[in-house]
Every structure is written in structure tokens, then in C-alpha cells.
């Protein structure tokens, strides 16, 4: 106990004294404890946990799926939708956020609309999106786009407005033009906030894609049972009463969300090296 306390207080004591200092080791301990408790809870039929398939049962359902192209095609479909919707949200949200942050008139004119649309949950858009857009694919893409764009825009606006006023004064004193200030002060100044916005935004897109696929029937993939995306994979597993597969789908989404956030984080660090410099 005291050893654990000491290691928390002095993060960089002598290396190799205890394997518990390693982040990866801690992560493995955390995950395996969780799985163990889940397994026990499931086997002992504890209330609430009891009806959930145990991890071993889930694994048994998962293993054959790993060699099933349909399962991987679901991954591909959901990832493709997330990526396109998310990229569209970035392409629209970042410039729009920058204009709203830099032009007072534009902000005053557009912000009220933005503020009314923002609290509407993306899922509330699903029925309307299905009616508005000609194909299922476009409706899903649109809902994903909505899921990410507000977070990205808000972060861009907030980031741009929190740039130190003295940076602008200093730049102007040194003879910088408005364009130069935008390019070399505003853009790098908001970059860390853009990264944060995207990291949160891509998490939301995974929430949204799954629900959108469930509601819209997997983009017209009902007949083929595979290829409707991970959300539809869960839904059809539910319809087909294969409960272990539901959990497989859930875990798959968890992993996919984690991977995409990690990629964004890594890319973000790459383009904002000064935020880590100490």
C-alpha cells in the first residue's frame, strides 16, 4: 500500500523497481480485472450482469467472425461513413468557425441560428435526414456530419478568441498585415483547439454512426445481413437473438472509437509540436 502511494508521489523513481510503474502493465491489469469481474458476475448470475454473455462466450462468438469478410466489411462501412462525415465536418466547420471568430458581423448574424441548431441531438435529425436526402448513405453521412461539426466549430471559435491580445498588438507593431496575422498568429493559435475539437468530434461521430445505421437499416443492406456497418451488425444480432454477437459489436465499436481518437491525437501532436515543448 505504502509502495503504491510512494510510486504515485514520485513518478520517476528508480526504474525497474516495480513493473507496476509501466503504463502498459497497468492497462493490462485494469483490463484483465474488468474481464475477470465480468466473467465471474456472468457465471454467478449476479443481478443485472447475469444476463450478459460472459467474456469467454463472447470470445467464442468473436473468433469465427475474425475470418468472416462480412464482419470486416461492417468495420469498413462504419469507418468509411465516419471518415467522410467527419472530414466534411472539418472542411466546413473549421473555416466557418474561423470566419465567425474573426468577423464580428458574420458572428452576430450567424451565431443565433447556430446556437438554436446546436442543442438538437444528431439522432433527432435522422428521420428528417432520411426524408431530405435522396439516398440512405447521404442521410447517414449528413447525421454524422452534424454530430461532429458543432463541437469542431465551438472549439475553433473558442480557441481563436482566447488568443492573447498582445500577440496581435506585437504583430501589428512589427508591421504585419492582416493576412500575415491570420496566417501566422490566428491559424497556429487555434490549431491546438482544432485538435481538441476533432478529438472530441470523432468520438461523437462513432456514437452517431451506430445509431444512424440502426435506425436507417444499415444503408439498405438489410438483405445482405453483412455490410450494414457495425451499428447494423448489432441490430441484426439483436433481431437474430445472438446475444454474444451484440457484445462483439459493442466492443468492436469501442475499439474503433479508441483507434480513431488515438490517430487524431497522434496527428495533432505532430502539427502542434510547441504544446509539448517544456
Amino acid at each position, binding site marked *: 500500500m505504502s509502495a503504491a502511494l510512494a510510486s504515485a508521489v514520485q513518478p520517476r523513481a528508480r526504474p525497474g523497481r516495480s513493473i507496476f510503474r509501466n503504463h502498459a502493465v497497468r492497462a493490462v491489469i485494469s483490463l484483465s480485472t474488468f474481464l475477470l469481474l465480468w466473467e465471474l458476475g456472468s457465471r454467478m448470475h449476479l443481478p443485472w450482469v447475469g444476463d450478459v454473455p460472459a467474456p469467454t462466450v463472447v470470445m467464442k462468438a468473436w473468433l469465427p467472425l475474425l475470418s468472416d469478410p462480412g464482419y470486416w466489411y461492417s468495420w469498413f462501412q462504419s469507418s468509411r461513413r465516419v471518415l467522410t462525415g467527419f472530414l466534411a465536418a472539418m472542411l466546413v466547420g473549421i473555416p466557418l468557425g474561423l470566419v465567425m471568430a474573426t468577423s464580428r458581423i458574420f458572428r452576430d448574424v450567424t451565431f443565433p441560428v447556430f446556437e438554436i441548431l446546436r442543442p438538437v441531438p444528431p439522432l433527432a435529425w435522422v428521420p428528417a435526414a432520411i426524408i431530405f436526402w435522396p439516398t440512405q448513405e447521404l442521410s447517414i453521412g449528413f447525421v454524422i456530419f452534424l454530430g461532429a461539426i458543432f463541437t469542431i466549430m465551438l472549439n475553433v471559435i473558442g480557441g481563436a478568441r482566447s488568443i492573447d491580445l498582445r500577440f496581435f498588438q506585437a504583430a501589428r*507593431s512589427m*508591421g504585419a498585415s492582416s493576412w500575415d496575422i491570420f496566417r501566422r498568429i490566428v491559424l497556429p493559435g487555434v490549431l491546438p483547439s482544432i485538435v481538441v475539437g476533432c478529438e472530441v468530434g470523432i468520438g461523437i461521430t462513432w456514437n452517431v454512426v451506430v445509431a444512424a445505421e440502426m435506425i436507417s437499416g444499415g444503408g439498405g443492406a438489410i438483405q445482405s445481413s453483412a455490410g450494414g456497418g457495425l451499428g447494423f451488425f448489432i441490430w441484426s444480432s439483436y433481431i437474430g437473438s445472438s446475444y454474444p454477437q451484440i457484445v462483439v459489436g459493442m466492443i468492436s465499436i469501442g475499439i474503433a472509437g479508441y483507434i480513431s481518437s488515438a490517430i487524431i491525437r497522434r496527428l495533432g501532436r505532430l502539427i502542434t509540436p510547441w504544446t509539448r515543448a517544456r
Partner: protein
Amino acid sequence: MSARSGQAKKLGAAIRPSEMQISGVSKGYGDARFRTEVVRDCTFTIERSKLTVMIGPSGCGKSTLIRLLAGFEKPESGSITLNGAPVTGPARDRLVLFQESALFPWMNTWDNILYGPRARGEATGESRDMAEFLLNKVGLGQFRKKYPAQLSGGMQRRAELARAMINNPAVMILDEPFRGLDAMTKELMWEYYSRLFEETRRTNFFVTTDIDEAIFLADRLLIMSNIPCQVRAVLDIDIPRPRTLISMVENDRANEIKMNALSILHEEAMKSFSRGSKAAADFVDAYSKRVAKG
């Protein structure tokens, strides 16, 4: 070696002897009933090739004056001129060093120093040579690739001096630049900064609340009254340069000026204290103890 002394000569030779005249300047904030007049009918001269230091109680409107001198804000009445020409907005001939570092966090030392020339499209080989010279001049040659967050407080101030100097301003305006540095670093920065001034003899305007800093650095010392901000007294600091910390402690003339300045500041503090300023209370208290001891 010869290239470097050439640079040094250029740094000194390119400086235009410049003078700023502030006459009858007033500035207030807020409307009608809630209006506070921060600067009222303020008149003084920042003499050419001199280091003019302005000292006054904190919150007396010094920073407002600096924004006016820099051109970030406009006076409500009165005029500010540089070499006879009215000041209309911010420009590279009057550069400000702010209270805390305003280095761009996303640029390394080298890019920060070269910001001005690049922004004006003048980043020629010549300005690169000058950046190189200044980088070494402020002792940051090893730190050109470091981001501001990787520099110590003193290094950041030096990098900022270099970033301002490369634009060759007619007047350098410094707003409590060494505030927040620890005592040792601060005193080293005084010596460092006054050497830099002595080498170039550029017109400098330095604002502070620290009486020791003021007397160590100044050719002329302006003592300000509390809000509204006006010049209360002008003292000529006739102590020969170069000055060192030790020589200043032992110098009778320096101590005499210090006591003189303190008694004027005390009067000002008493006045604002009697007008209900809490901030002045500490100073009044400390000063009376000190006089009793001496």
C-alpha cells in the same frame, strides 16, 4: 569577426536619434457617471538617446500611457508626436515590450526574432545576418530551435529584446519588462539591459514600480502621481555609466536620489490614501517605518 563588428556598427549607426513629445494628453474610460479619468493633461518629453524611466504607484495609469504611446489607443485630447510627426497607430518605429512574455509560443526563438522582417517581406540575407548577430548578442545562440516554453523567464525577455531590436525602432517602450523574474535574474537583467542601451544609445522609455530598478537604469526619472496620471517630478540621474550593482549601493548620490524619489512617492501615496486608496496604505506604512529606522 569583422563581419560581426560590422553588424554591431550597423546596429548603432542605423538608429535615428528620436524624440517623443507628449503634450496635454488625457484619456478616460467609461461613460458619463461611471467615467474614470486615468490620464489627465499629461505632458512630458522622452528625450533622444536617453533612457527615460517612469515610476509610479501600481494602477496609476502607466499602462494606459503605454498603449497611447504605442498607438493601440488614441488620446481624447492632447497630442503625441514622434520627431514632430503625430502618432496615429501602432508602427514599428515604437515597439513595446509587454509585462509578460508576448513571444509567439508556436515559433522557435529564431522565427520569433525574424517575425518582423518576414511580416514586412524583408527577410533578406541581411536581416538573417542581423538576426544571427542579435541572437548571439542576447546569448541565445544555443537556443535558436527552442520554443518559448523551453526558455527560462530571463531568456524569454532577452529573446523579446532581440525580436524588437531587429526592427530597429526609433523608440523602445518597455512596460515593467522584468516584473515576475526572481531577484537575482532581475538584477542581472538590469546590468544586461543597460549595457545594451549604452551600446546603441537608442531612445528608450521604461516603465516600472521598482525604485531600485528605476535609479539603476535611468538617465531621467519621471515620477507620476496617482490617478489621474500626471508627471509629478522629473529627476536627472547624473550617475556615470556604466553602472554596476555594487557601485550603485555604495554611491551616495544614488542613495540621495532614492530618498528624494521615495519622499515624493510617499507624498503621492499619502494623497491617494487620504482619498481612500487601499493600495496606498501599505506603501505609507512601510515608508514611515523606514524613515523612523533611518
